[in-house]
């Protein structure tokens, strides 16, 4: 393929003085002064959080108030910056959720490490961890920003459930077998 050399257009005299260009630049910036500003007055005005926004990861309960996480530790495994730490535990044999058997004894997310990638939400088989719309965190110490289980549940609240897997399981267990 032949090489085609493109010649730069020589500058006109006016262009060489820069002055018309500077003037037109000045006009553009001047016009900008009178444009409306786009600043959001942040703490008073809040940005609109779009659907699917990935804010702080939180733990949620199902509508019956049962903690959904069963400490399967998949989120801990998948988390790229290793922000999640879980110490699994066995649930009380007596309580309402005894049939779930397993739940997190301790669950902490180091928000200083979290990169809000949402992998934890994606991997969770129980839909127990959600990146919700909270995005501004602050604390005075590093420890404060390692969120513990109670804090994560407080942030997460309750989300609607489509499956009620464990409730169904419990009722099946109670109904027993048509044996």
């Amino acid at each position, binding site marked *: 393929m032949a090489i085609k050399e493109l010649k730069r257009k020589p500058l006109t005299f006016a262009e060489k003085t820069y002055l018309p260009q500077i003037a037109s630049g000045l006009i553009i910036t001047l016009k900008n002064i009178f444009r409306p500003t786009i600043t959001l007055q942040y703490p008073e005005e809040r940005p609109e959080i779009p659907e699917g926004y990935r804010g702080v990861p939180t733990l949620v309960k199902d509508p019956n108030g049962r903690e959904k996480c*069963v*400490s*399967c*530790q998949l989120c801990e*495994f998948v988390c790229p910056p290793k922000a999640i730490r879980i110490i*699994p535990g066995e649930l009380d*044999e007596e309580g309402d959720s005894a049939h779930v058997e397993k739940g997190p004894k301790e669950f902490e997310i180091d928000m200083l490490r979290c990169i809000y990638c949402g992998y934890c939400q994606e991997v969770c088989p129980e839909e127990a961890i959600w990146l919700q719309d909270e995005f501004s965190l602050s604390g005075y110490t590093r420890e404060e920003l390692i969120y513990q289980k109670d804090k994560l549940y407080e942030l997460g609240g309750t989300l609607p459930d489509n499956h009620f*897997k464990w409730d169904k399981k419990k009722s*099946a267990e109670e109904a027993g077998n048509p044996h």
Partner: protein
Amino acid sequence: MSDEQKGDGLISVFIDGNEVRCKPGTNLVDLVDSVGKEIPHYCYHPKLSVSGNCRMCLVELGMPGKDRATGKPMLNNDGTPKVMFFPNPAIACGTRTSPGMRIRTQSEMVKKCREGVMEFLLINHPLDCPICDQAGECRLQEFSTEYGKGYSRFIEQKVVKPKRTVLGPRVMLDDERCVLCSRCIRFCKEVADDDVLGFVDRGSYSTLTCYPGKQLENNYSLNTVDICPVGALTSLDFRFKMRVWFLKETPSICTESSVGVNTMVASREGKIYRITPRRNDEVNDTWMSDSGRILYKEIEDENRLTGYASQGAFSPPDAAILQVQKYFESEKIAFVGSGGNSVEELYLFNRLSRAAKSVGNYLVSHIQEGDELLISNDANPNTRGALSVGFIESLPETELPDLASRIDSGDVDTVIVYNEDLIVAGISSEQLAKVDIVYFGTHSNATSEAASVVVPTLSVFEKAGTFINQQFRLQKFLQAVPGPDGLIDDLVSFSQLLNHVEPDSGPLETVEPIWAELSKEVSQFNDLSFNTLSPEGAQLDGAAFQHLPFCEGKTLHYEPAAETVEAGT
């Protein structure tokens, strides 16, 4: 060319069209595994009898046709043998090879079979994976992703079965997850000789249970957890502690007895979570004892030594080693080693004793009652190591009357003790008080309390090394977790001490240079080195010690030599 003509006793079979040479009568599952392919299976286990009840291993089989009338092979037009495939699939686990056999492991029919079996297995299977300890090493999970349908057509209610059934002190059963493979039943019956498990009820209601009034409590019960292909049997010790995908596995050797069971130590971030057996067909097959699995708890025991001490006061490592050097100047020094230490450590300990002109080397024997399976009578895992490196010449005894009398007579005024308690070995505390004691060891005991200098050492999980088991098999273990903060490897301490008393001994701080010396010095170890030692270990020539009356009786892969038994009894 017929198989007999090749004369090596092997036959040809064809796996998916590729010729494979094997011994006649090889199990198909093992054969296919050996060529790097997989036949999925649940109930088959190489060390158990074949029961053939899961049907996961269905494959298509074919044989070269023979003319019924003449008995001659049927040939295709081009002269190749005509292969007749059976119309129905057959289970691979129940089939042994015969000459000319054709196996199809990937055909449409085989795939359909697997899908069907998977679908039936999953019909009543609970959606428990998030809370199931087996997740991550579960055959059902693996095979349903690989060979399953990917979705469920079953909308009826699942069969409910008991969950959280405690089968024994160490094993818990979740019947919903059981795929009724009967591996656990066969293990108890065939290997552990404790036939306590069985199925009750029929069809999808079949349930695994213990015989009424009995428990799964034999010392091998946790092997059922290992061989259970699903999460039905779980270990109470490991239950809900850690997911298996976090665990780092390090090959190790069990120190419970001189059998030298091969193990895998699973740890995460420096903490051990469980120990499982590692297959070694010469030693332990795929089994290990329950009591061996909890040995890791010792390293977190409260009387674990974690700090160096000199004259009862805390001392930095360097200062403690300097102190030890002083005691080495004594003319009347005796060395007490332990059969729990590795070959390398005992070698250096022996070098030290020679360099310090020891007046006597002692090893304390620990006799226990074996179970004729995987626990032998000798609780020292490395008695033969001590013999091989020359630390002792005759078999050790449980008590040390010789040392006691020497202390009493004043022939010994300094004793270097390595991981043994002299009180247990029959030395009285008055006698202890008469001598200076330097104690190397992992845990504190009466001797360490009487010691002038205490040097804490590492446990088998925290260092690398080798043991020689009762079969004179040299087996290596690797470091699974780091030792407690600030502890120096035993080999490093010994090497420093050795450099002090024998300045030209060179650095011997890791196993490799020690093996370089060992392979030169000890004829048994010629041509061996630590890095090249295979995971299965190396069989040494124990002829030099054959005359000794070892205390071990029969165990799984060990027969005591006839005259030894006589001498021993």
